[in-house]
């Protein structure tokens, strides 16, 4: 065991009692359990990386054509980083369907961990899984894609995209809490691809019909990428984007808490 986990897991350490301390410990140990399952991390990062390399090879050197100063290369980089990040967040949350099916959630319900602590812990893990795709796609953008940005811009863009995946982490939890283990995978895949395409991650939305362009503005994916692009080209934050993402966060968070409270039932 590596030394940081040893410190976290030291059984002789004074047992934390407060709900906040329980939440932190739960989040850390869930993260350890997820990180040890390396295959899952590799699979979540592989697809967006491959797609970035493919699209970048095809269109990378063109102008983005959306009226901004972005090149297609940086536009693609942002889109695929978002695509990877929401995939990681969504699928990691949906994995709780497995814990539900095997009955681990029932066991967990017999602890003093509050429902909100469970949600925060799981969302933390989901956000952790969202990091590698962002970092990898950005690294490829900087090297293969020849995207040149200032150090601060890189960091702001990465952190902005990362934080904006919170609604998808909660969406994953809601799916994992409500769907049956068999239907979790297809449902999350459908939502993943649906929101990615509708939000303009694969094809920019200005190539959509005006109706679909209108719809896209209610899809969180669109705003995640939009906020990422704003970070890269230095234009200010759009409040409407923050508002849409906040709205999704509140609704999905509430669904997640309610679903956890119900998850004592056998599946």
């Amino acid at each position: 065991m590596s030394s940081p986990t040893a410190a976290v897991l030291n059984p002789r350490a004074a047992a934390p009692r407060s709900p906040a301390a329980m939440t932190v410990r739960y989040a850390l140990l869930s993260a350890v359990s997820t990180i040890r399952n390396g295959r899952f991390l590799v699979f979540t990062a592989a697809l967006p990386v491959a797609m970035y390399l493919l699209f970048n090879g095809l269109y990378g050197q063109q102008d983005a054509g959306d009226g901004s100063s972005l090149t297609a290369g940086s536009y693609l980089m942002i889109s695929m980083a978002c695509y990877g990040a929401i995939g990681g967040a969504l699928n990691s949350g949906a994995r709780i369907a497995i814990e539900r099916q095997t009955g681990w959630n029932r066991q967990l319900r017999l602890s003093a961990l509050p429902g909100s602590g469970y949600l925060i812990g799981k969302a933390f893990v989901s956000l952790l899984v969202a990091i590698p795709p962002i970092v990898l796609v950005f690294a490829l953008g900087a090297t293969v894609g020849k995207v040149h940005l200032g150090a601060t811009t890189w960091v702001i863009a990465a952190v902005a995209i990362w934080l904006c995946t919170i609604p998808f982490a909660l969406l994953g939890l809601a799916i994992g809490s409500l769907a049956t283990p068999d239907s979790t995978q297809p449902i999350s895949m459908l939502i993943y691809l649906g929101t990615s395409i509708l939000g303009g991650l694969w094809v920019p939305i200005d190539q959509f019909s005006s109706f679909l362009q209108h719809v896209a503005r209610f899809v969180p994916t669109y705003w995640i990428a939009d906020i990422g692009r704003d970070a890269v080209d230095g234009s200010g934050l759009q409040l409407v984007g923050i508002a849409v993402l906040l709205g999704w966060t509140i609704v999905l968070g509430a669904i997640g808490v309610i679903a956890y409270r119900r998850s004592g039932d056998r599946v």
Partner: protein
Amino acid sequence: MTRTSPTTPASCSALDARTGAAVDITDVHRSFGEVRAVRGVDLRIAPGEVVAFLGPNGAGKSTTIDMLLGLTKPDRGSVTLFGADPSQAVRTGRVGAMLQSGALLPDLSVRELVSLFASLQPHPLAVEEALERAGIADIAGQRTQNLSGGQSQRVRFALAIVADPDLLVLDEPTVAMDVEVRQAFWASIRTFAASGRTVLFATHYLQEADDFADRIVVMARGSVVADGTGASIKERVSGRRLTAVIPDAGPDQLRALPCVITVEHIGGRMSLQCSDSDTALRAVLTQFPQTHEIEIHQANLEEAFLRLVATEGAAS
């Protein structure tokens, strides 16, 4: 439906101590769609009692336990633990439970898992103590997905006791254990219960219920059909069976004798189910002095149990 009244001193004290009861279940019902899993269960358990929940699969034991632990809500009726709502009793660390087939979180070692669960309790045991008591100190470093069935059960037991609970609930705890492991396991439970904790365990091993519990609550088809000590249940339900060769006696004549419940004619012998075998035997010998080869059997718990279930089925 005939509801059986409690027959033991222990359960009487539970009724007296209603407000201080460890478990107080009042007229609880729970259905799943068309299936009425639990149909009006009343149960009070005093602190310090060790109670077995006995019944066949589908009797409603696990559903009752789920409601007791706050994992599912009753459609009707109330459940309190130590006078509080089950979820509050869980939050304050007064309840520990070993769930049936509850999986363990994979990719963690046994020690990490028990340590995680300890850290989610308000006043946990030291992790090493819980591992020791559950007899899994030697496998503490193993990943949870690599354990045998019996080992996993012991880890679940560690998870149940690490909260240092006043009430320990075990849902069919010895499933997947071989005989030796089972004995060692009961020894751990005995030690843990010795300090005045309340224990409720579900089982369909009759011997286990009779050996370990102070009191047996028998469930069948969603209702409590008997509640008492192992001995009192056997006594009350089937009394004793008297078999003998009774020349010239017809079944009707025998059935008319005092304390005789049923009469069967088996291979030249008469078999009499008696509520009081002493009285019945005196009557038989008085009327039929030629009676010989007399045997009297105490029904075993298996028989008692089957009869209880069958009687309840016929009545409903």
